[in-house]
């Protein structure tokens, strides 16, 4: 196995700090406009749909579905072998990029629209990155 380097880590800004504070505490946070109800990501202190500054931060369900992806075969210093870069459609509406873990990184295992659940991977004391794993199917 090649020597795996840390992921490229984000530097939170004042406008995104709540998101990274959330992941550090094991929750996925989104924002909602109190005027028009639009739910959005990535973070900003105003609504991108209507411009209102009356917005709130709330804890999302952490559930989503696999919207699209690629399996990167070129070497990345932070990944061992081919890995999936995914777009996850969150239950609340927004889309975010992530990786799919606890799942083979193959087209056969990665089926579009499969249900996913967020998990948080510790990078250091400050940064926990939200990743997604296949959700347990309800019986």
């Amino acid at each position, binding site marked *: 196995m090649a020597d795996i380097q840390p992921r490229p880590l984000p530097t939170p800004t004042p406008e995104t700090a709540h998101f990274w504070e959330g992941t550090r505490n094991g929750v996925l946070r989104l924002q909602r406009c109190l005027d028009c109800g639009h739910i959005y990501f*990535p973070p900003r202190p105003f609504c991108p749909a209507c411009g209102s500054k009356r917005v709130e931060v709330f804890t999302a369900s952490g559930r989503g579905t696999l919207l699209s992806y690629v399996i990167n075969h070129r070497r990345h210093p932070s990944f061992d072998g081919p890995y999936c870069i995914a777009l996850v459609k969150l239950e609340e509406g927004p889309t975010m990029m992530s990786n799919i873990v606890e799942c083979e990184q193959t087209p056969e295992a990665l089926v579009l629209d499969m249900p996913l659940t967020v998990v948080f991977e510790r990078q250091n004391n400050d940064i926990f990155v939200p990743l997604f794993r296949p959700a347990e199917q309800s019986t």
Partner: protein
Amino acid sequence: MTGVAIVGAAETTELGRIPDVSQLQLHADAALNAFADTGLTAKDIDGVATAGSTPVELVHYLGITPRWVDATSVGGCSFMIHVRHAVAAIQTGQAETILITHGESGRSQIGRGARGAGTAGLAQQFESPYGAMGPTTMFTIPVLRYMKEYGLTHEQLATVCVVQREWAGRNPRASYRDPITVDDVFASRMIAYPFHLLECCLVTDGGGALILTRAERANDFPQKPVHILGTGESAESPMVSQMQDLCSSRAFRVAGSEAMRDAGIGHDDVDHLMVYDAFAHLPIYGLEDLGFCEKGEAAGFIADGNTRPGGKLPLNTNGGGLSYMHSGMYGMYALQESVRQMRGTAPAQVPGAEVSVCLGVGGMFAASGCIVMGTEAAA
């Protein structure tokens, strides 16, 4: 028509692998070739637009005293947007004769500044941690959703490359000219599933330059003038994950429809089309977002031979970024091919072509610029 024409157009003397020329000199080589194309010198230029270098660096290096500069840098379609801005500047008298340059040592990396945007930008916070590393992983990520929604097959995606190679085979300056098959595409190594190597653009060195001025002056120059009939531009998001619709580019739709409306043309008026093809799905998105095909029908349109030599809508007739060349910001080469087609000097000339649409994309669907060009007769 805009009343503005392209009177000078040239690529760098060499294309491909150019390890003995810096990026700045690639800009200059293209500019000097464009001067030669027009009979003008740096002293005749009063406006400069560029991306990948700065207009400041260019005017110093070339000896230009500008009264108009544009440093719009939104990826590979920056040059389409420069053309649009140059048209407005010439129309309003802010400049008389504008030079637009591109030079990029994409393969050899000679004299190329460091890239990178730190770690606090939106894309750096919300995409880079997941191993997104440049166009091969980002430009490509929408296509599986498109395949599921519209039934695009792997064979159809590969066919885009096969058809463009047919065009490249007719272009002596194309990097790759040998015919390929769908099986050749599938046999090339996987880059980012579902994209094989041959479904990704080249990485080469080169440059190009354009000179624009008022159309009334256009016949004072040695080359057949190419008229700018219409222009459009737009932008959407620096993050591919935040596209409104993974199956369509909002920037394509906005820029394309504005350019065609500005030109006063309909789809049946278009004889020649360039769609910036960094990857095999781009022509599919472009054909649909420009309205040449209904949603979900572009792959079949290509597979049926409509865009190949002899087809009713010749597309990417230089071979495109997939086979001709791709330095990183390919838009300049698409513009150059539209100019050659309108001059009637393209190696794979479309007989009787009078109107060309040239659609650019920048930064993984982040931005777009679209230029409609025409011959004197079309203007």
